[in-house]
């Protein structure tokens, strides 16, 4: 290998992002003094067409053998510059990127001279590392032509249908006994006032009828291994104790079941039996037995449902099953959890019966809900003469979540209008921080509520107390007029915000995907790759990324599905090039590397020497650090490359 391969260095100003702090001219002049460097330039935007073509031209004119670009984080544009090398006949691994924006100019903007010194050190280290880089081959692997969608709300349903309608075998996993998610609980949707279930339920039926979709309801993802193109997933399917092939959802079993429990689909405002179907339009349209409350499963007596079912669909012998499947790509659409409003103790949720959440309200105003759509106070079943909504419960609040949940203002406007539609005489007050109504026809919808007499008060109540007849006293300052308001109200609805699902952390760990600081799943790029994650082949749809309304959820589901199709339409995809290899002359055959490999990619051959299966190897380098003989090296991160970079960083370096 040549000691000084011909190297080109490009320093990016990134407008003022870098150039406003780091003296790029100085860094460029400095780069020219480094022995391997034959050309060094700075430009306004190295990633632009102009910047890229100047690199390509230099590769030709100066017969460059290495390219170093100092600009933003490699996670943003490394692949763009690698393509320039490839297009100019250079191996893309002969490229090194220096991060002088995210890790230099943006964090040292008050110390421009020191930032410039740091940039020089980093460029020197990259040039020295680059001299030792080696061309790598990109192995390819085949792609499993199936997809897994996790979460069966409107996001997961939409994604699964897009995929299945494009011929992709799709597994749809839902933890609840039926798909439908939160949308199945809603009465109407804003701002069109479509009946929620009327537009959702045909999509749910499509899922059931689509031969490309395998629906796994009442199931959880327990293990995910493999990587893009060949994920291997284990799903735990909980028993329903009812055979879905035999059950016709006639309901005879439920009618005879002696055990009544609170109906969680209606948040305890009604009761259901121990054998039940969550709601009439459920998919799969099959009853199930609640094993925590079934008399037979707990006390060994009863079995009335079994005797009642004419189709012999009841099967108490059903056991939990673990299903193993393969998928080329995964869409995560696990939605959100509603903020638990009882955390805001001052509002008395779950303490005063007539303080309810916005999702409770959906069930109480819903024609198929526990009150047949008649708005009744939970305490006495009377029709409320006055209703107050309180906004931003759990959102825009330093004590809970600082972000705006985006949909609660519009949900409240809709719910206020639904009250005014059914009960024009009922007084409706909305206590708000700011009304946020950006969206097609949203502002008009808000205006409509005002014109119907809904009173909007800017002011956040400090506390709610209960007075006689379970009425609620709300004290709040009307900020616009400065007047202290003291109102007695029959029913209070808390506009609870949206939180990341509590199981998301665990799922993200299984996927090795990153979360954002707010606890939602992080997207690969907030603008350009909003439905991709940091893990190739893992996509996201809907509220799992951040609170969204239904149209935005459906739109992201389409975008995620397009990403999956883009991947599955390829016959072969690139596999990891940064893998480990063994120098068998040095290998002592001790097997330490085998013990640390998380993928079982290493074994001993017939001569007792370690050998790496490079398609299985993911390139972490654990084995390299473990090998006592120095016999294993990691491509692109060899000891020599790392040490040359380290030495160059510390040599002559000033802080």
């Amino acid at each position, binding site marked *: 290998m040549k000691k000084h391969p011909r190297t080109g260095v490009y320093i990016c100003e990134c407008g003022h992002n870098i150039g406003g702090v780091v003296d790029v001219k100085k860094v460029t002049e400095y780069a020219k003094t480094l022995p391997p460097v034959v050309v060094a330039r700075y430009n306004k935007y190295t990633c632009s067409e102009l910047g890229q073509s100047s690199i390509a031209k230099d590769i030709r004119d100066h017969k460059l053998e290495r390219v170093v670009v100092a600009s933003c*984080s*490699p*996670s943003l544009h490394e692949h763009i510059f690698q393509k320039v090398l490839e297009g100019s006949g250079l191996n893309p691994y002969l490229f090194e990127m220096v*991060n002088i*924006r*995210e*890790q*230099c100019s*943006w*964090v*040292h*903007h*008050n*110390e421009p001279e*020191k*930032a410039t*010194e*740091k940039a020089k*050190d*980093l460029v020197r*280290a990259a040039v020295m590392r680059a001299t030792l880089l080696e061309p790598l081959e990109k192995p390819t692997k085949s792609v499993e032509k199936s997809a897994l969608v996790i979460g069966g709300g409107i996001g997961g349903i939409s994604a699964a249908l897009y995929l299945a309608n494009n011929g992709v075998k799709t597994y749809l996993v839902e933890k609840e006994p039926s798909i439908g998610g939160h949308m199945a609980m809603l009465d109407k949707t804003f701002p069109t006032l479509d009946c929620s279930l009327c537009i959702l339920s045909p999509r749910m039926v499509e899922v059931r009828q689509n031969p490309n979709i395998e629906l796994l309801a009442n199931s959880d993802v327990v293990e995910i291994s493999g990587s893009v193109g060949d994920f291997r997933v284990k799903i735990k399917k909980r028993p329903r104790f009812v055979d879905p092939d035999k059950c016709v959802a006639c309901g005879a079993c439920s009618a005879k079941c002696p055990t009544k429990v609170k109906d969680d689909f209606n948040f305890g405002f009604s009761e259901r039996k121990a054998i039940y179907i969550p709601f009439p339009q459920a998919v799969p349209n099959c009853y199930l037995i609640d094993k925590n409350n079934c008399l037979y499963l707990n006390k060994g007596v009863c079995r009335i449902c079994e005797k009642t079912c004419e189709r012999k669909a009841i099967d108490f012998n059903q056991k939990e099953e673990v299903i193993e499947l393969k998928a080329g790509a995964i869409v995560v659409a696990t939605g959100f959890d509603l903020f638990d409003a009882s955390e805001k103790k001052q509002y008395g949720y779950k303490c005063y019966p007539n303080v309810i959440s916005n999702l409770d309200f959906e069930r109480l105003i819903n024609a198929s809900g526990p009150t047949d759509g008649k708005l009744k106070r939970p305490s006495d079943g009377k029709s409320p003469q006055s209703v107050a909504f309180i906004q931003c419960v759990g959102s825009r609040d330093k004590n809970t979540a600082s972000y705006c949940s985006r949909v609660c203002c519009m949900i409240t406007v809709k719910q206020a209008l639904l009250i005014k539609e059914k009960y024009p005489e009922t007084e409706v007050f909305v206590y708000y921080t700011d009304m946020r109504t950006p969206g097609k026809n949203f502002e008009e919808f808000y205006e409509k509520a005002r014109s119907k007499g809904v009173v909007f008060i800017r002011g956040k109540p400090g506390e709610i107390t209960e007075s006689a007849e379970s009425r609620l006293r709300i004290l709040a300052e009307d900020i616009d007029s400065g007047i202290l308001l003291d109102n007695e109200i029959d029913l209070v609805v808390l506009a609870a915000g949206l939180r990341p699902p509590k199981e998301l952390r665990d799922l993200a*760990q299984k996927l*090795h995907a*990153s*979360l*954002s*600081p707010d606890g939602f799943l*992080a997207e690969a790029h907030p603008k350009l790759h909003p439905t991709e994650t*940091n893990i190739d082949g893992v996509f996201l749809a809907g509220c799992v990324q951040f609170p969204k309304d239904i149209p935005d959820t459906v739109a992201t589901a389409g975008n995620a599905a397009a990403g999956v199709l883009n991947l599955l339409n390829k016959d072969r995809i690139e596999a990891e090039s*940064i893998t480990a290899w063994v120098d068998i002359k040095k290998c002592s055959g001790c097997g330490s590397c085998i013990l*640390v490999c*998380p993928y079982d990619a290493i074994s001993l051959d017939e001569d007792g020497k370690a050998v790496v299966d490079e398609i299985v190897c*993911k*390139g*972490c*380098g*654990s084995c*390299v*650090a*473990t090998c006592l003989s120095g016999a294993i090296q*990691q491509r692109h*991160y060899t*000891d020599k490359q*790392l*040490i040359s*970079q*380290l*030495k160059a*960083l*510390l*040599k002559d*370096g000033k*802080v």
Partner: protein
Amino acid sequence: MEKFEPRIVGFLCRWCSYAGADNAGVSRMEYPPNLRVIKVMCSSRINPTIILKAFNEGADGVLIAGCHPGDCHYVKGNYFTRRRIALVKKLLEYVGIEPKRLRIEWVSASEGNKFAALVKEMTNELRELGPIKNG
């Protein structure tokens, strides 16, 4: 006399900590310019030789940062790192280098604030500690 400014080398894993450092930049947080970063695929790639080499070549401090336990992109790499670094710290003590010059930290991709605070803290500690004494 000029104030002592420590030189710190940080080995950051590509998936969590390097992205966390990027996050500090995107959020425009400030931290001292004493750290120089080397990106690796996983913190478990760093063998003791490289750490000793860093001190030998003039580093006043070495930071190894990876994904939180349980979050490793490669399933269990950071557990090996944790054990290995504990041993290297003992070795450092034996050769007369203060073990706190070597730090192991878990920084996720969203913890830009943690990363910035960590670099500040480590830099200040090393400023107080001064250069490595030749013994």
